[in-house]
C-alpha cells in the first residue's frame, strides 16, 4: 500500500524527567519572564509523560522564540512570523506528534497576525504559547502591536499613539477552539492553562503575559499581587445549577468570552474559550485521505499512475 511508511519505534518505559528535557542554559536576561514559562512547560510535560521523541517545539524569531534551544526535544527555529504555518505542516502531515509553537507578540500579532487567524479557523491540532511582553525585545525596544498607548519606545519616543490590538478579541473572534490567558508570575496557573491547552483536541492558544525586564519593566505588575496588582481569575461554570453558577463564565459561549476580552488591562486570567465539538483539520483531511485510499484499495503507486495515464491515451 503506497502510503508513507514509518518504522515503529521500540516502546520504552523510562520516565520523562525535567532533566531529560533540559537543554542549553537559556540566554534570556536575568529576571526575564520567559524563564518561568519554560519551567512551567517542563513541569507539565513531566506530568503528562508525552513520549520524548514525539515532542516538537517550533518558534519564529524573537527572545521568546529562542525557546526551542532550551528544550531538549526535536525542535525548529524558523523565521520571523511564520512559526504557525510551519507547525501546521508538521501537525497535519504527522498526526502522531505533539506540536508546540512559541513566540512573542511581535512575531505572533504583527508580522504573523494573518497566519494566526487562518490556523485558528482551520483548527489545526497544535498548542501555541504566546509570550507577550508588549514590546519588541530582541530588536531592543520598538513599539509592538500590544504596546499600550503612551509607551515610550525607540520608534515612539513621545509615546505610542496607535491603539494596540486586543489579543483575546483576536483569538475569540478568529475561531480558535481553546483560548486561555495567563501570567508568567503565576506558575501554578500557567501550568494549569498549558496542561488544558495540550489536552485540548485542536488549536489551543495560551496568551502569557511575560515581562521584559530590560525594555518594558513592570508592564504586568497590575496583574501581579506581589507587585500590588490584582490577579483576577475567570470563574468557569460548574453546571451545578446553583444561582452562583449563573454568574460564571461558559467557555463555549463566544459572546461571553468576547465580553471578558473587552475588560481593561490587566483583565481576567483563565480559560476564555474551550470548544471540543469542532472537528480538527487534521481529522477532516485524514477522513478525505482514508476514503480516497479505500477507493483505490490495494493499488500500488505504479498501478494508480498507469490508470491515470490510460485516459491520456
Amino acid at each position: 500500500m503506497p502510503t508513507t511508511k514509518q518504522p515503529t519505534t521500540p516502546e520504552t518505559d523510562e520516565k520523562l524527567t525535567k532533566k531529560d528535557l533540559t537543554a542549553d542554559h537559556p540566554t534570556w536576561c536575568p529576571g526575564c519572564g520567559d524563564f518561568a514559562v519554560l519551567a512551567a512547560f517542563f513541569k507539565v510535560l513531566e506530568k503528562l509523560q508525552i513520549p520524548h521523541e514525539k515532542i516538537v517545539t517550533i518558534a519564529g524569531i524573537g527572545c521568546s522564540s529562542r525557546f526551542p534551544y532550551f528544550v531538549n526535544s526535536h525542535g525548529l527555529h524558523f523565521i520571523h512570523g511564520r512559526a504557525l504555518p510551519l507547525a501546521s505542516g508538521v501537525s497535519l502531515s504527522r498526526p502522531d506528534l505533539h506540536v508546540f509553537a512559541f513566540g512573542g507578540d511581535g512575531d505572533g500579532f504583527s508580522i504573523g497576525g494573518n497566519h494566526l487567524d487562518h490556523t485558528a479557523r482551520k483548527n489545526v491540532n497544535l498548542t501555541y504559547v504566546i509570550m507577550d511582553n508588549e514590546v519588541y525585545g530582541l530588536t531592543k525596544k520598538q513599539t509592538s502591536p500590544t504596546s499600550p498607548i503612551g509607551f515610550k519606545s525607540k520608534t515612539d519616543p513621545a509615546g505610542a499613539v496607535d491603539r494596540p490590538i486586543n489579543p483575546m478579541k483576536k483569538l475569540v473572534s478568529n475561531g480558535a477552539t481553546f483560548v486561555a490567558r495567563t501570567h508568567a508570575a503565576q506558575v501554578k496557573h500557567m501550568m494549569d492553562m498549558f496542561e488544558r491547552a495540550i489536552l485540548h483536541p485542536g488549536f489551543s492558544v495560551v496568551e502569557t503575559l511575560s515581562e521584559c525586564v530590560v525594555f518594558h519593566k513592570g508592564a504586568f505588575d497590575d496583574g501581579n499581587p506581589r507587585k500590588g496588582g490584582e490577579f483576577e481569575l475567570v470563574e468557569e461554570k460548574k453546571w451545578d445549577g446553583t444561582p452562583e453558577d449563573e454568574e460564571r463564565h461558559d467557555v463555549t459561549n463566544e459572546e461571553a468570552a468576547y465580553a471578558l476580552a473587552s475588560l481593561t488591562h490587566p483583565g481576567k486570567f483563565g480559560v476564555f474559550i474551550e470548544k471540543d465539538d469542532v472537528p480538527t483539520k487534521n481529522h477532516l483531511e485524514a477522513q478525505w485521505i482514508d476514503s480516497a485510499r479505500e477507493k483505490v484499495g490495494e493499488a500500488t503507486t505504479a498501478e494508480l499512475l498507469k490508470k491515470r495515464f490510460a485516459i491520456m491515451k
Partner: protein
Amino acid sequence: MSTPSTASSVEEEPASPDDAQLAQEDLRNAVIRFAGNSQDGIQTIGGFLARLAGRSAREVMTYMTIPSTISGGPSIFQVHLGSGEVLSAGDEADFLVAFYQHSYDDHIASLKDGGVCIYDSDHVEPVEGDERVHYVAVPITSTTIESIGGTAKDRGKNMFVLGLVTALFDLDRAKLAAIIERQFGKKSEDVLRNAMLAFDAGYSYPLGDVLGRAFNLKSGESTDEHRVTTDGNTALTYGLIAGGVRWGSGYPITPWSPIMETLRTELPKYGGMFLQAEDELAAISMALGEAYAGHLAVTGSSGPGLSLKMEALSYAVMAELPLVVINVQRGGPSTGLPTSVEQSDLMQAIYGSHGDTPRVILAPKNVEDCFYTAIEACHIAKAYSTPVIILTDQALATRIEAFEEPDFESLVVEPTLETQPRDADFVPYPFDGHTKHAPPGTKMKGGQYPVVTGLEHDEWGHPSANPETHQKMVNKRRDKIKRYGDTIPEPEVFGGDSGEVLLVGWGSTWGPIREATMREREAGRAVSAVHLRHLNPLPNGLPKIFEKFERVCVVELNDQGLYGNGQLATLLRARYCDEKITSLTKTDGLNFRIREILSGIQPLQAGA
C-alpha cells in the same frame, strides 16, 4: 486537464507556432465551423476572417445560421478559407470550434474524419476515446476571464478564439488587428482595448502543433497505444508523485494553479495531501514543515509568488531542508502578463534570496521532460537535503504533447519516513555536508535532540557567531551543491559537434531552437545546438563543446539586460569568460518563431 485519446496523432516534435505555418503550406482548403451562441458574437469572428481573407490573396466563402430567438441562442458561422479556388462554404468542416456542450453535440458529426475539434474545456466534455477526430482542449471561457479580468459580453471569448485561429493558421496578425481596430475603434477606445486584450491572449495561447498532428495522421501512421497525450503541468504533477512527493502546500496563481489543483485532488489517493495556504509565505512555510516532518514536500507558484518565497528559501538553504519548488514562469515584471510565456525568472531562482544561498535549478525542455525533471528534482532534494527549483513556463504548462508512456514500475519511488532511532554520534549539520535530518518522532539514543535552525550554527544546530564556524558552514553548503554538480551528465550537441554557430537554449525554447538548427543544416550551414536542463550548477564540460564553434549564441525569452546579455548568457559568460558567447533574446510574450531565430543568428554567420 485530460483530453480524449489522440494518441496516434501526435509526433514527438515539440510544438511551436511555426510548425503550424509549416503544415499550413500543405493545407489547400480549410473549412472552419464556429459553433456557439449568437450572444458570444461568433458571427463577428467569421466576419473578421472573411474580411481578412477578402483583403488577402486568399479566397473565402462563408455561411451562418441565425438563432431562432432574438434573445439569442445556438448558432454557427462557417468559413471556408482557401489558397486555391473555393467553390462552396464547405459541407464537411476540417475544423470545429465548439463553445458549448450543445454546440459540440450538434456539430461534431459535421467534422470530417481526421478533422480537428477545438472545444472550450470549461463547458464541453467530448466523447471519451473518440479516435475519429483530433481533440484540442482549450479553456476558452476561463482563459479569457483570466486575461482581461472578466469576459465583457461578446467582446471576450470570440476575440480570444479569433486570436487562437490567427496563430493556428499563421494569418496576418497585423492586418487583422487593423480590421478589428476599424471595427471597434468606432465604438470606443476601451471597447477596442478589451477586444485586443482577448485577441492577444488567444494569439499567445500555446495551442501546440495542432496541424502538425493532423497531417501525420493523414499520412496514415499506425496508432501506438504506448503513447500518452497531456500538457506540461499535468506531466510535471505526476512526475512529482512518481518521485515520492506526498505532501505540499501552495496558493493559487496562473499558470501554476492547475498543478496545485491536481495535487490536491490526487494526493489523497496516494496517502498524502496538498494544503491550500492563505498566501505564498504560509505555503512555503507549511511545505517546509512537512519536509522537516520527514516527507518529501513541494510548493510552487509563478513570478509574484516566487518573490514572496525568497525569505523562506533562504532558510531552506541554511537549515538544509529538502524541498521541491515549482516556478511556472509567466511574463513579468510584477503582475506583468499572466497568460504569456517568458523565461525571466532564472536569475531570481539562483540569486533571489538574501545571503549566499547555493541551491539547485532545473528546467524541463518539453512536456515529456516535465515528468522526468520532476522525478530528478525529487532525487536531488532528498540526496543532498536541499531545495530544488524547477523552472517551467506558461507555454509548457498549457501545451499538449504526446510521448511514450513512462515505465512506472522502474521509476516510482515509494516514500519512507526515516524515523529509525539515531545513534549517539548523530549530528544534524556535519561539516562534511552529508546532512540527513532526523525527523521528529526519531528516538535519539544519545538522549540529545537536534535543533533545525536558520541562525548560523555549529554541527549540533546551536547558534554560533564564531568566525571559523561561519566560514566552514558557508563552504560546506557550497561544496555540497558543487559535489552534486559533478554528477550532472555533460550535455549532448544536436547537429555537428563543431561548426560556425552553436545555439544554446534552456526550457521551452528547445523546440524552436531544434527546428531552427535543422533548417540551417538542411540549408547547409554549420549550425548546432546544445540544450541545458541543469542551470545551477551548470554541467561541466561546456568549454570542450564551445571551443569547437566560432560563435556561441544563447537563445532565451528574457531581456538582454543592461549589458546586452540574456540571463543564461550572463551566467555562461561569468563562468567561462568567453567573449564569443552572445545573446539572442526577446520578450513579447510569444515563443520564438523559427524565422526569428534564423534572422537573429544571421549576423553571426560568415558573409554576414
